[in-house]
């Protein structure tokens, strides 16, 4: 599979110098064409910071302290998004990579009509487009996300939460970007609406062929909708594997804990197990593996040496990686 976006050793800090808090450390992640990559983890594990860091959308005092985000355009040579000039970055955004923010349904401007807000980005990115074709594109987009085009002249308060959410998704897709980052896009919605919207998203992805990075703390959602899942803990990726593999056989104790904390719909009833303790303070991380104070299976090397993300020593080790001393990596996984 060809990669669309490659994150290499990305480090994101809040603050500068000695007072910096390292919120994302050494994250390496590859998004392939047409896939849904799920990013899961507890609150404060660095999921959103990673998303905003790789798009350079972090507000001060957030800074990127190292790494590369290589984007592979449809034509031409791949380039590092972190090295783009401000002008080139403006061009790149939305056109190549769009983002749907956390609580997106409250991001619509209440004093403008949906149509104005949908066509605004077209005006900026495709100035040669005629007014008529802009409106036509916006109507088409609304239809795609399942909203009747006659709601074009509605104001945000006239729409329900789910509809507003879909307008936001439609807005993100209006320039047909190749990468869509969704930061907990359905957290505020009820499960029925969540399912409906995600189903639509997957359908759209099949039709339009974009790749999705889907950030959520709801692992059950990811297991159903994503191709691959990366689990974050304390600013690092601790495990990455195809969704079915992780669901069936998670290797990292933290992933197991996450999976064990929600019930299965079918199958025998089992005891739900949570993860004891609370997420680590990013300003004062435990030494070694940051999960070791909470890990039920921590042993001798855990408190001292940081495990590196690599291919585990299991039979199905290919195509997955884990950072855990229970499954030490003989060779760090490439890319």
């Amino acid at each position: 599979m060809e990669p669309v976006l490659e994150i290499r050793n990305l480090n994101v800090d809040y603050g500068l110098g000695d007072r910096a808090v390292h919120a994302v450390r050494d994250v390496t992640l590859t998004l392939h064409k047409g896939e849904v990559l799920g990013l899961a983890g507890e609150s404060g594990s660095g999921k959103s910071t990673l998303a905003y860091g790789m798009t350079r959308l972090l507000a001060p005092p957030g800074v990127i302290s190292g790494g590369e985000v290589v984007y592979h355009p449809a034509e031409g040579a791949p380039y590092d998004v972190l090295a783009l000039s401000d002008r080139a970055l403006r061009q790149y955004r939305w056109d190549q990579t769009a983002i749907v923010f956390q609580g997106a349904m409250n991001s619509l401007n209440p004093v403008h009509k949906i149509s104005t807000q949908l066509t605004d980005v077209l005006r900026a990115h495709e100035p040669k487009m005629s007014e008529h074709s802009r409106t036509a594109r916006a109507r088409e987009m609304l239809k795609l996300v399942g909203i009747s085009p006659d709601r074009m002249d509605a104001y945000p308060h006239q729409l329900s939460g789910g509809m507003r959410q879909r307008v936001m998704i439609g807005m993100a897709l209006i320039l047909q970007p190749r990468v869509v980052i969704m930061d907990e896009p359905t957290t505020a919605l009820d499960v029925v609406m969540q399912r409906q919207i995600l189903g639509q998203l997957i359908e759209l992805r099949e039709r339009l062929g974009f790749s999705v990075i889907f950030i959520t703390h709801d692992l059950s959602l990811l297991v159903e909708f994503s191709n691959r899942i990366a689990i974050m803990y304390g600013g690092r990726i601790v495990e990455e594997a195809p969704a079915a593999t992780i669901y069936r056989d998670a290797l990292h104790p933290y992933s197991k804990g996450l999976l064990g904390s929600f019930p299965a719909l079918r199958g025998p009833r089992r005891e739900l197990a949570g993860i004891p303790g609370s997420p680590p303070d990013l300003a004062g991380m435990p030494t070694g593996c940051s999960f070791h104070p909470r890990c039920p299976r921590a042993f001798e090397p855990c408190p001292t040496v940081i495990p590196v993300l690599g291919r585990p020593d299991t039979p199905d080790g290919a195509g997955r990686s884990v950072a855990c001393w229970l499954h030490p990596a003989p060779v760090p996984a490439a890319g």
Partner: protein
Amino acid sequence: MTIPTSSIEQVIPGQGSMAQPESAKPARVRRQRFRFVRNRKAAAGLIILGVYVLLAIIGPWIAPYDPSARSNDLVQGPSAAHWFGTTHLGQDILSQILVGARSVVYVGFLAGIIATVLSVLIGVTAGYLGGKTDDTLSVFTNVILVIPAVPLMIIITSTLNNVSDTLIAVIIGLTSWSWNARVLRAQTLSLRRRDFVEASRASGERTWRIIGFELLPNLTAVIASGFVGTVIFAVLSEITLAFIGVVNNGWNWGTILFWAQGQQALGQDAWWWFVPAGLAIALLGMSLSLINFGIDEFVSPRLRSAGKTKVRTTSGRTVRMRIGFTPVLSGAPVVEEPARIATPVAREAK
């Protein structure tokens, strides 16, 4: 910030080998306590204001001459004997400035306190209680607001004879609270419908407690900047009154300017007569404004800059941190303890 750490230790006692040493804690506490002063603007403003307050206290004692005493050095420029020169009567201008500081600072702060207390009482009460009370108080505030303050002060002070500094401060305070009251009322109106206020009302807290413990802490910034603004206004008003000669009891910087103007100091090229007083006023105003900026940044994290705002990026340029264009720092990525490759021990233990 330290709560998660301790709770981890509670879960698995004995394994609390935390990366953060104990000695790091006092530093953080100290940083929190002096955060306002660590703001450069606030610190500069406080230092200048501190000098003024000091001068207001000790000025009359350290003044080298009696400010009203005449001498034979008429309209002399700055010299070793008279640092800021002399007036047409041979009075020492440095002494006048030093002695005048007390009256200016005293009137400024007293008027500021009076106006702030009045504006909080009237503005917050009107905003919180609403209804008829609000209507009445708002009308009253608006009436005071449209009365031009300085002419009113001129009329009041000129009908009384031999007004004291305290009386001037009271008059200024009574005529300058209305604007702040309006601002506070508006802010209170927005706060009183917030969920936390509704919750305390629903749980039966008394009105005075809701106002004192739920609303006022959220109004601190508005009140503080209102106070600082009123002090500036009061200082300028007092100087204006003295400058136009309505009030003429003892020395303040307005009195100096009054005499400088009356004796055509500008025409005589006697710049030392009015420049020191003018600068003193400007510096005092500046220090109060700086404190005001400091308060704004202290209270609103959006305005606050976390110390350094400019960083060097990988492209070699120095850019300001701003939203939407997160800078990519130059230099090597964070150096951490390098992760060792799996050891045989680890395998055996598994």
